[in-house]
């Protein structure tokens, strides 16, 4: 009969008692190793009543006995593990998987596939569903909060003359009624920085236009086109979807490389990186084209404006690159689409 030497702790004292362990007919038998032939019997427990720790390459096996005592059995040559297996002690599925490299490689492949599926399909679909089922009041509140922060720290009142603003707002309202009936929106004119050229869509349908954009564009049709693009973001709830997607990415990343501690760290970082995906921009562009079409306005002024902005971009200061053009490697592609529309 194979015996194994180890230590026994009674759970009441720190003393380590050297013991001899063996398994006989489904029972675990522990005797003192005091040099006598047989030793004193300390424990005799049915194997299904003891708990054996998971096997690790260089760690001893720990056996928790029903009475509160524990055994520490060194098992460098795995003979104790073999004896346990022969006696019918099953390893959990997780342990059996992790003991086999091929299974681990397959598991890794499955993880990568699942993450890919999640990132490209599951996450956008979930974020879309969530964004459209979010109560409108909640979304409006988020928008107001963001606008409040922007107003407090970065924005001034618009100095574009009131007739021009009213004219733009009226033309925008007409086109919006035609292309996005029933969609809540609010147009806000502001000035920021050293005449920053920008327009953005906040949650809850707030569309923000900076004076710099109105002045730099000159042509009203071009401004209308940019506003149509932003309304496209509003209609498709891009801003909320983007926030939800970044939160999803952050959560999964922290599951991978940290415990939950990563959540706290990654969420703000990801939130700060809010820029629309290529897909969202394309959708907004398509909407802008339909928006202009509904008012029989040519897309040419918008195209010319985009080109003009691009030409000027290298000379613009930091932080002045407009959001609707920036962060995308596919600007050429987008300009091509507009050019096709003009023809």
């Amino acid at each position: 009969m194979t015996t194994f030497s180890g230590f026994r702790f009674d759970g009441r004292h720190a003393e380590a008692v050297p013991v001899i362990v063996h398994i006989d007919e489904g029972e675990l038998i522990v005797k003192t190793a005091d040099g006598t032939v047989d030793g004193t019997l300390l424990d005799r427990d049915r194997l299904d009543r003891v708990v054996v720790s998971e096997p690790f390459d260089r760690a001893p096996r720990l056996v928790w006995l029903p009475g509160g005592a524990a055994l520490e059995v060194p098992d460098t040559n795995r003979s104790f593990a073999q004896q346990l297996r022969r006696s019918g002690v099953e390893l959990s599925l997780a342990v059996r998987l992790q003991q086999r490299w091929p299974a681990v490689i397959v598991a890794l492949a499955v993880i990568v596939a699942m993450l890919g599926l999640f990132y490209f399909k599951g996450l956008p679909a979930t974020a879309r569903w969530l964004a459209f089922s979010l109560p409108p009041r909640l979304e409006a509140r988020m928008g107001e909060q963001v606008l409040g922060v922007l107003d407090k720290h970065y924005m001034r009142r618009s100095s574009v003359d009131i007739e021009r603003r009213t004219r733009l707002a009226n033309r925008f309202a007409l086109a919006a009624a035609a292309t996005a009936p029933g969609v809540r929106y609010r147009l806000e004119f502001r000035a920021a920085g050293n005449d920053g050229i920008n327009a953005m869509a906040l949650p809850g349908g707030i569309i923000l236009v900076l004076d710099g954009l109105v002045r730099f564009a000159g042509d009203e049709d071009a401004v209308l086109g940019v506003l149509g693009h932003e309304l496209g973001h509003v209609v498709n709830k891009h801003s909320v979807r983007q926030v939800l997607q970044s939160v999803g990415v952050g959560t999964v990343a922290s599951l991978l490389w940290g415990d939950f501690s990563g959540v706290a760290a990654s969420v703000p970082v990801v939130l700060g990186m809010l820029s629309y995906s290529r897909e969202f921009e394309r959708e907004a562009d398509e909407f802008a084209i339909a928006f202009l079409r509904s008012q029989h306005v040519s897309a040419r002024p918008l195209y010319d404006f985009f080109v003009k902005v691009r030409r000027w971009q290298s000379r613009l200061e930091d932080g002045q690159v407009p959001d609707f053009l920036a962060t995308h490697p596919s600007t050429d592609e987008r300009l091509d689409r507009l050019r096709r529309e003009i023809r």
Partner: protein
Amino acid sequence: MFTGRGSEYFRIWVVNLLLTLLTLGLYSAWAKVRKATYFRHNTWLDGHVFDYHGNPVAILRGRLVAVVLLTGYTWAFQFSNAAGLLTVATLCAAGPWLFMRAQQFSLANTSFRGLRFGFRAQAGEAYWTVLPVLALWFAPVVGGAFVSVETWVYWTPTFASVLAWPWMHHRLKAYQRRNAVYGDRDFTFTPATLRFYGVYAKGFAFVVLGAILAAVTIGAVFAWWHRSGALLISSRIETWIYGALAVLAFYVVAWPYLAARLQHVVWSRTRLCDIHFRSEIKARPLLRIVLKNVGLSILSGGVYWPWATMALARYRIECIRIESGVPLSTLAASLAAQPVTAAGEGAADAFGFDIGL
């Protein structure tokens, strides 16, 4: 001695990950127990290993609480100031208790030679210790919600909490150590607030030096990049890159120094009866390990992570020395610790607390 190895931990990590993803995160509690067990069973002292007894269901419960609190904290200020204040108030009210319970859960579920560690948890002391820390921590957040960034009302609390940080850190460490228990013996801790300030001051000097160096380098690179006419790099992405690099630089340069020196201070002041502890951890080898970990993790797309974790744990654990006149086995022991719930353990995990063993 620490016998954990990357190749083995990698397999545990992958299987844990797979099961966690398949169960939509529920398995993460079991994964945590298996990881904690792996660490304990591979940590040797005097020929025996440590053991872990955490109950996954309790951890799962704790994690659910943590997710709710965290979601509240992240989103509340986005909705309204009232909701934000309510969350902060809840965190302040529950925080000390959760922190105490986290200590208790982690220690009471760790054993060595059949004896459990423990944590003397008294709500009064926990609140007295943790509340001032929480108040200083949240002051800038609350201030930022009500007044503009430029005013002194915002900057004073921020500045104060930065200045008080070593004091807060020391307060928490001292609280953790002096209430720790092994069997029926108490750990003691000799306060060392000034030493903490000294370490932080030197660490801060390193950060400033490093930041200046990094800023000059990155600035030069970007200036060159712009001149060469690379278009369409938005200012936002740039800010993000700057931010990420700064965090990385801090982690790589300052963290090893602070961790090494503070571990040294804390252990040399900790005592268990006649047992003294000594930490032989050095900033430079730690820096080398962190550099290698960060570099290889990035290059391998995160796959190196388990090896990184093992290398760091191994160095930190093997640097702790124990000096005792009496053999550990002669320590008489009291009976097992009382059962505790894990609500605090989960929450503390989410906010990144640990006892730094």
